[in-house]
């Protein structure tokens, strides 16, 4: 996929809040693909819980800066972290910089995702690989990297943004469905591997959520949603906030559907 050219991963904007609400834990949250939509809402929700938050983005510099500014205005602490999650070197570099700036990543939200829809009959290898690389392989690599600090800290929260697509069919999205179903499988197995270190790994499966990513979808999809409305990024973020909390420590390997009943 087209990445960030020659730009190196970096912490390019740091904004500190006043520290009121600071987390009791020495560490931070990293939300991938957080410049807008669901990722931005999750970043804000975690910041309001007291987590210093890294707002990762690939190319949406201005949107990421705006998300950081929103968190700052709300009294939280955040920084924008440019890195293409599909680029191993950029991810390693971003982690190093982030750990230096905000401490170990104790909450990882694998949210970055792309769509490249087509019928399987005509889908190119490129569209298949691009969606798998971003939505599944990158999430695995980020998880593997973040777990190092989490198991040492005897605390960690990995939250993978899956989808109602995967557990259920959606014509034109065989790549996306495969990636999201894979993410759920990965979630369950990694959860079992690290559970006794106080690290939980869960998935959130949103249905139709009103974001830029779904703006081009046919409105008739709504008629299939029992709630008869699209969800909001904030409704997804509320679930992430719960899964990241201390209180959710016994919830692991689970898939939380936020879909207005679509997958029911």
């Amino acid at each position, binding site marked *: 996929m087209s990445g960030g050219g020659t730009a190196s991963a970096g912490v390019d904007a740091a904004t500190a809040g006043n520290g009121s609400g600071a987390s009791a834990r020495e560490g931070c949250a990293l939300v991938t693909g957080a410049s807008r939509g669901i990722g931005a809402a999750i970043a804000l929700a975690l910041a309001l819980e007291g987590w210093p938050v890294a707002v990762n983005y690939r190319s949406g510099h201005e949107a990421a800066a705006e998300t950081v500014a929103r968190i700052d205005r709300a009294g939280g602490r955040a920084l924008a972290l440019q890195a293409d999650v599909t680029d191993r070197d950029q991810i390693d570099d971003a982690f190093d910089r982030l750990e230096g700036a905000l401490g170990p990543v104790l909450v990882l939200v694998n949210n970055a995702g792309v769509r490249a829809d087509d019928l399987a009959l005509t889908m190119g290898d490129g569209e298949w690989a691009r969606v798998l690389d971003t939505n599944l392989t990158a999430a695995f690599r980020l998880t593997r990297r973040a777990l*190092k600090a989490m*198991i*040492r800290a005897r605390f960690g929260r990995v939250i993978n943004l899956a989808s109602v697509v995967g557990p259920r069919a959606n014509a034109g999205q065989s790549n996306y469905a495969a990636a999201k179903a894979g993410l759920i499988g990965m979630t369950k197995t990694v959860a079992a*591997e*690290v559970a*006794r*270190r106080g690290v939980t790994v869960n998935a959130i499966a949103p249905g139709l959520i009103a974001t830029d990513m779904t703006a081009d979808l046919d409105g008739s999809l709504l008629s299939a949603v029992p709630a008869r409305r699209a969800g909001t990024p904030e409704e997804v973020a509320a679930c992430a906030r719960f899964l990241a909390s201390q209180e959710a420590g016994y919830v692991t390997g689970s898939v939380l559907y936020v879909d207005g009943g679509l997958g029911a």
Partner: protein
Amino acid sequence: MSTTATEEQVEQVVVEALRSFGAEGAQIDREATFEGLDVDSLDLAELAQIVEERFGVELRGSDVASVKTVGDAITLIAERIS
């Protein structure tokens, strides 16, 4: 076999790590097996991480797979350091 200063340092780090995994201190000696100490693959992966941080040597899963006792691990790590 004489014990080098490096091996002593390694032993200290390994024993400390095993205790943090829940192994009982009194049972930890060079002859003790990881199986007997209830140390599993996740513990060994964490031990490899600790060793890498402390001594700068990387242990792969295949290295650790052949290690059965605490003494084996100490010897392997000390060899890698030297």
